[in-house]
């Protein structure tokens, strides 16, 4: 199945980001295709390289970047990002800023869009 994932919540504060990550890893193992990952609302905070968690904790931004390096399209909503001070310069590698049109295409092209957040 072709899946798209949308994440609404910021890192660490909320389980949504971890749940989405675990879901995607499990879906890939099961042989599903990930059409794309879209960060919206406070979700845009998930992929800033300014993040510097304690060493014994998971590095959420790097985890997403590694998924992006594997070829999955990871998009940060520009409108949501601009509100929150997230710009190209602070993004980890392998993710990109783009518009809600990208979310639209994911919703149209994916068999299922899975939302993580409140």
């Amino acid at each position, binding site marked *: 199945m072709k899946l798209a994932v949308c994440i609404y919540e910021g890192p660490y504060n909320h389980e949504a980001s971890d749940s989405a990550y675990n879901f995607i890893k499990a879906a890939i193992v099961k042989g599903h295709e990930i059409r794309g990952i879209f960060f919206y*609302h406070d979700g845009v905070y998930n992929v800033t390289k300014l993040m510097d968690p304690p060493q014994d904790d998971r590095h959420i931004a790097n985890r997403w970047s590694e998924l992006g390096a594997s070829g999955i399209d990871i998009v940060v909503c520009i409108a949501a990002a601009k509100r929150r001070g997230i710009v190209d310069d602070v993004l980890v590698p392998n993710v990109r800023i783009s518009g*809600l049109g990208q979310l639209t295409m994911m*919703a149209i092209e994916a068999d299922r*869009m899975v*939302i993580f957040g409140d």
Partner: protein
Amino acid sequence: MSEENKKKIMFTVRKPPHGTIYVYEGLEVKLIMAAYDADISVVFIDDGVYALKAGQDTRELGIKGFEATYGVLVDYEIQKVFVDRKSMEERGLTEDDLLVIGEDEDTEEPIRPKMVDSSEIAAMMAQQHNILSF
């Protein structure tokens, strides 16, 4: 693309309109998505029905508010706007409380969201390609 070949995408709005940004940023998604070749519908359920209450004044909250944008949803070609009857009743709201989302091109009659029962919403949901919740 013909109407029946368009992908059906539904938005559900279940959160109150103010207090968090979900409903406002969710509205931004609807306006963008309406410009694409998809069959868009919106359903207001639970506290989401408060977003459709006419006469909201957000000045004291220090936020711009978005009632005016809801007032022109039809102009954005978002015509399929539904509200859950049970959620309305539970909150003491009636059809008269609903804001206008546009006007009929021919008759110039005001268009309001359509009140529907949960079973109708379930039937619509079952037909969707994808559902986005805000």
